[in-house]
């Protein structure tokens, strides 16, 4: 389950060209996703960027993009700025932070609504949108962190001053419990189901659920934390943080030219994740279509968040052979059993029946495919001398009933289950993107209903 996403090695894999598919199709890069800031109008505003020359930017891009990017440098200026810590466009058809190339760091927060006042809640969503618009562009919230009235606390908390925009994305979602409020019951999407109890779940209520969520991803952890902190501050009295999770290392990639990052078990996982450039797969598996309904969700997606604790110490005492058998891959390259390269098409029958890749693969799940965006976490130790660590699993999909749920059910017999435990769980309807300066998070939802 760490990797429900083996599944992403779906049929499209073959279509892009068999064995070396991913590495062959690199460098449309991220330009086509709509996520990165291709528009020159949105100049990065944090001071640190000023004075960077073009050469510096290109170099930054090469480092960030890995070998493939080096081979084709400077192909897309907008993209290279982004790679160097620049901004990601906030406005778009879809929210940024889903198909966007995965950033290095995460701060994820789930909120509960405290107010019964629909107007006050809508006003907060508008304030959040404005703050997000500014922060993702590398600007301070409101009137900034200094220079205002000496008698008042500054609007912005200040710790991101002087830092680059760092490709910050802020992605908002609505939990099932929100629809019990504000007369929204009829607008609850059918696909926003309450997740069933899965085998082995040991969920902590305090780390599960939530009326709202915000996923903050950035290449600089302080930029991500700053964003959540400032949104929480704006929200006081209207919403309160229910739980939050920091993630320090991405465990998946939506850029096919990049190597798949390793999880804390030391394995590559989800090697054939949906890429930000794969418009057809995104449309098929990730974005909610207009005909799916409800209309306010068109262009949105559904997010499943699971806090998966890993039993790190027992895992580390497991023999290499067993580790590789459990995953169905070799540890060094990450290649499926009997194959040479990490993105080679796996031959499932060569694996043990309870191997993780075999069970999570789309071929074992009627083609079910999700977009993974998880992060490794370590929240210190647990008082018994064990790391409190694991995978904060994030998966986006068009319909969880055809995505996460069947895959997770199929993982009931996963050999990996001996070493992991799901301890937190949440599901959110992620509305479409904020279109322009007059639009705001949730407008379509709240405009389509009235109180009552």
């Amino acid at each position, binding site marked *: 389950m760490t990797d429900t996403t083996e599944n992403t090695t779906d049929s499209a894999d073959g279509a892009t060209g068999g064995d070396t598919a991913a590495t062959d199709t690199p460098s449309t890069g991220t330009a086509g996703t709509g996520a990165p800031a291709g528009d020159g109008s949105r100049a990065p505003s944090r001071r640190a960027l000023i004075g960077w020359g073009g050469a510096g930017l290109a170099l930054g891009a090469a480092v960030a993009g890995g070998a493939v990017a080096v081979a084709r440098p400077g192909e897309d200026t907008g993209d290279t700025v982004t790679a160097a810590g620049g901004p990601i466009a906030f406005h778009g058809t879809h929210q940024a932070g889903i198909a966007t190339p995965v950033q290095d760091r995460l701060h994820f927060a789930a909120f509960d609504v*405290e107010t019964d006042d629909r107007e006050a809640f809508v006003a907060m969503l508008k304030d959040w949108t404005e703050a997000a618009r500014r922060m993702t562009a590398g600007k301070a919230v409101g009137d900034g962190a200094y220079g205002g*009235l000496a*008698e*008042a*606390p500054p609007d912005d908390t200040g710790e991101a001053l002087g830092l680059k925009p760092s490709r910050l994305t802020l992605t908002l979602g609505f939990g099932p419990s929100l629809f019990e409020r504000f007369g929204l019951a009829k607008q609850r999407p059918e696909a926003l189901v309450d997740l069933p109890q899965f085998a082995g779940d040991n969920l902590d209520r305090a780390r599960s659920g939530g009326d709202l969520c915000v996923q903050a991803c950035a290449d600089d952890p302080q930029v991500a934390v700053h964003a959540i902190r400032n949104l929480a501050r704006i929200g*006081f*009295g*209207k919403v*309160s943080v229910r739980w939050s999770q920091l993630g320090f290392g991405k465990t998946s990639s939506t850029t096919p030219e990049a190597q798949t990052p390793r999880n804390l078990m030391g394995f590559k996982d989800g090697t054939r994740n949906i890429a930000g450039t794969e418009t057809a797969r995104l449309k098929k598996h990730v974005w909610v279509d207009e005909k799916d309904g409800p209309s306010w969700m068109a262009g949105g997606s559904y997010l499943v968040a699971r806090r998966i604790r890993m039993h790190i110490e027992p895992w580390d005492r497991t023999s290499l052979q067993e580790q590789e058998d459990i995953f169905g891959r070799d540890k060094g390259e990450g290649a499926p059993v009997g194959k040479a390269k990490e993105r080679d098409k796996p031959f499932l029958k060569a694996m043990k029946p309870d191997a993780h890749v075999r069970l999570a693969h789309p071929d074992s799940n009627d083609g079910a495919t999700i977009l993974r965006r998880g992060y490794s976490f370590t929240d210190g130790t647990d008082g018994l001398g064990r790391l409190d660590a694991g995978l904060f699993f994030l998966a986006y999909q068009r319909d969880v009933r055809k995505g996460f749920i069947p895959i997770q059910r199929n993982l009931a017999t996963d050999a990996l289950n001996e070493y992991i435990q799901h301890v937190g769980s949440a599901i959110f309807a992620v509305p479409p993107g904020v279109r322009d300066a007059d639009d705001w998070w949730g407008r379509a939802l709240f405009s389509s209903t009235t109180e009552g």
Partner: protein
Amino acid sequence: MRPLRLSFVTAATTVAALTAVTGCTEKSSAGADGVIAVTATDTKCEVSKKEFPAGHVELDIENKGSKVTEVYLLFPDDRVVTERENIGPGTKQKVTAEVKAGDYRIACKPGMKGDGIRQDVTATGSGKVAKRDPRLDEAVASYRKYVQTQADETIPLVKVFADAVKDGDVEAAKKAYAPSRIGWERTEPVAESFGDIDPKVDVREDGLEEGQDPEKDWTGWHRLERSLWKDGKLTDRDSELADQLVKDLVDWQKRVGKAEITPTSMANGAKELLDEVATGKVTGEEERYSHTDLVDFKANVEGAEESYKLLKAVAAENDPELTKELDKQFTALNTLLDKYRADKTGYDFVSYDKVGEAEQNKLSDAVNALAEPLSQLAAAVVK
């Protein structure tokens, strides 16, 4: 409880900074223009002039009444510029001060009681201090009175507590403990501005400085709290501590009127009271043995609300949205707190160790919901 905050500054500092030193040392004798004859009787307070040049001022006081009197030169918000007490019938006294241009009051207090008989006077000259909204002066004056009243009313309650301790009556002392703290908790930011009092009366064991011995150097309410609830017995040392607590709080009562209070410090003090709640009470750290945290909690909120009410008229003009939100959040928090006491007029709250984690969360959320807009009050007042 916490380290000294700066919202309120004690009189000693401000007088020097703002108005120069007062007192009767004759630095340079005031020019004829700067001398004001003050004739005090039992019913009148006559001044020879109502306008005088800013700078060195001398009040030539004569008590023609039958009672001992006091004469004050006051700022419009009742802060003392200078004063002379114990002026006997038929005697004369002089008092001098350096004053900036602006409005002042001279007050005579026959019998040394009450607000006194007052005369408005003006120091003329350039560089006149911008005149403050008179409603804010009134707010500060009212708050000053509130702070003094809280101290005055605390003393007898502390004596009840101290007597019970000295009688060795653990149950009676436990009962008197929380009520004796209410006045202090309501005005804590002002009380804390006297840096030396707070560490004597309200420090917790974890607040002791390095090298301080908890058995020898720890004094005040929380030391007695530990004896009563944790040790469950009272010793001779506790009797000494009880006497010391009364003495230190009488010192507070005498000095608290001299704290500099401004509209801004009132607003920030209100916010600090909520900070006290957020960092000490919601967590149950403040009253770790007695678990009477909710009494302190309520008193902190009441003190904050008093400042807010006094400043509200001006704040509502400058930022009506803010006062609307503050009204709402004060009500919400008070409503929530009421769930933890049967008698809405009393201070008999549920013991905090009986308040579950989920409920503590709710209290914390309500405090945050109020404290965030409250942090905007100072700006709304000075806009």
